[in-house]
């Protein structure tokens, strides 16, 4: 009996450590990068995000109904473009071409200053509050922009702002 206990202690120790670690992980790592597993608001969050994608698609479709070609620029922080392009065979909506920057391929000044440009800025968790005062936006893009369209969910956690250059009639 004693021999068995002596022999099995590594098994008991490792199994206990594994189970304890699993419990600790669920307690400590249930929230990662601003999102929480089994969040009470997850169904509402999902519905709000789908609404954002629907509304932004409609807004772009109406802005891009005109004949002249336009560029729709998405910032590197945006998340909706993959959903907008889902099931499409090109990055075109109407007469618009959708392009997104990354941190290694930012937009140059020439692209940003063009008159045929629409700039999309999204509001989404975990940084939904960041665009409340627009200072972040002005810091990145300057102040020569006017809002062409906007939408925000009732809980203010998802939304978008669609900008055009104010100098361009």
């Amino acid at each position, binding site marked *: 009996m004693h021999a068995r206990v002596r022999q099995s202690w590594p098994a008991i120790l490792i199994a206990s450590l594994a189970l304890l670690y699993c419990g600790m992980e669920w307690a400590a790592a249930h929230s990662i990068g601003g999102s929480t597993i*089994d969040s009470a608001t997850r169904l509402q969050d999902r519905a709000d995000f789908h609404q954002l994608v629907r509304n932004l698609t409609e807004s772009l479709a109406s802005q891009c109904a005109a004949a002249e070609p336009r560029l729709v620029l998405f910032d590197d922080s945006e998340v*909706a473009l993959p959903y907008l392009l889902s099931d499409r*065979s090109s990055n075109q909506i109407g007469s618009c071409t959708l392009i997104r920057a990354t941190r290694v391929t930012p937009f140059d000044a020439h692209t940003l200053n063009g008159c045929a440009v629409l700039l999309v800025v999204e509001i989404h968790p975990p940084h939904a509050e960041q665009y409340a005062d627009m200072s972040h936006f002005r810091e990145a893009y300057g102040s020569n922009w006017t809002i062409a369209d906007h939408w925000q969910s009732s809980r203010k956690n998802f939304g978008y702002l669609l900008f055009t250059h104010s100098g361009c009639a």
Partner: protein
Amino acid sequence: MNTRPASHVPPIRKLPFGIGYAAFAFASGCCVLLLARANALTFPYPWNDEARFFLPAWWLSTNGSLSPAVLNAPQGIFWVPDGFYIWLAAILSIFGRIVEVARVACELTVTLGVALFAIAFRRITGSPWIGAAVTTVLLTPPTIFAANMIRMEAPLFLIFAVAVLFHIAGMRLACASMLLLSLLFHPAFLIALVLYLLAVWTTRKTQGPPRKHSASRMLAWLLFAMVVIAAGLELFRIVQHFPLVRQHMALQEMRKAGHSITALLRKPQGILLGIEILVAVWIAITRRRGSRGAQCENLVPFAAAALGVQLYAVFGGEVMYDVYSLAMTPAIFLCLAYCGLLKGGQLRTDQLKTG
């Protein structure tokens, strides 16, 4: 003269694990899949990395080009190798160019990875109970988070699980090929490959001979040849676009270099790295004294590879690496610690059941 008794029945080759354990491994994978599905789009929220990694794959499947103009990169984007884009583009071309297809593909890949890791842990520890207990370390939020991300962590997790299985089956060339394949998804896995090869070389005298079975050997060489060809093609592409590669990688390095090393080491991931290094050193020291079993010896190279992944995960300092630093590597090191606690192979937990 045939001395064989008439009633002799050839022994049935025992499966490496029972049906019950196979069901557990499958259920573990399904558990991750269900939790990931229940938390899709909220754990994590849709984030910018999805766009950064989905759109090149979408572009490849729609335009047949690795230069995604949709990401303002008409000359190509070189912050990681193209393995993930090619893998995902193939899936999108078959099942539809929808972001949800990409997410489900990543979830199923992690699901399969969890099931294979569960089988590997059972084989490493020699006990279904310890194997099952260690597998619970993978049934935690970081794994679910990785399953829901459209990023290369999902295929890398599966590649690592397959590599462990190859290694414990004695197919070291196949294991090294899988680790080489991982470089086509993320260059940081070079640390894991180098540490693995170093550990195989260091422990070569005490490791068992490589697998002699001709089918296994053929499979390993075939895999190796395919991965070397793929790596060669990627290298050729990198050389062709070298100035752009250097520019994109410099931006990446600058961002990573901005992290404070002391702050990273104070995080739970850093503390785990310290513990794992201690376990590795303890195993290495006691191995020299010859007190540890062959089972444990066999795991040393893979623990070295896991340590390589942990080093990157800790110093990379981003939440997407939590699946390596908080789930996969701790589980592998728990197996190693268990083997290390066994003395000279005296104890096999399989035998404890029968007393």
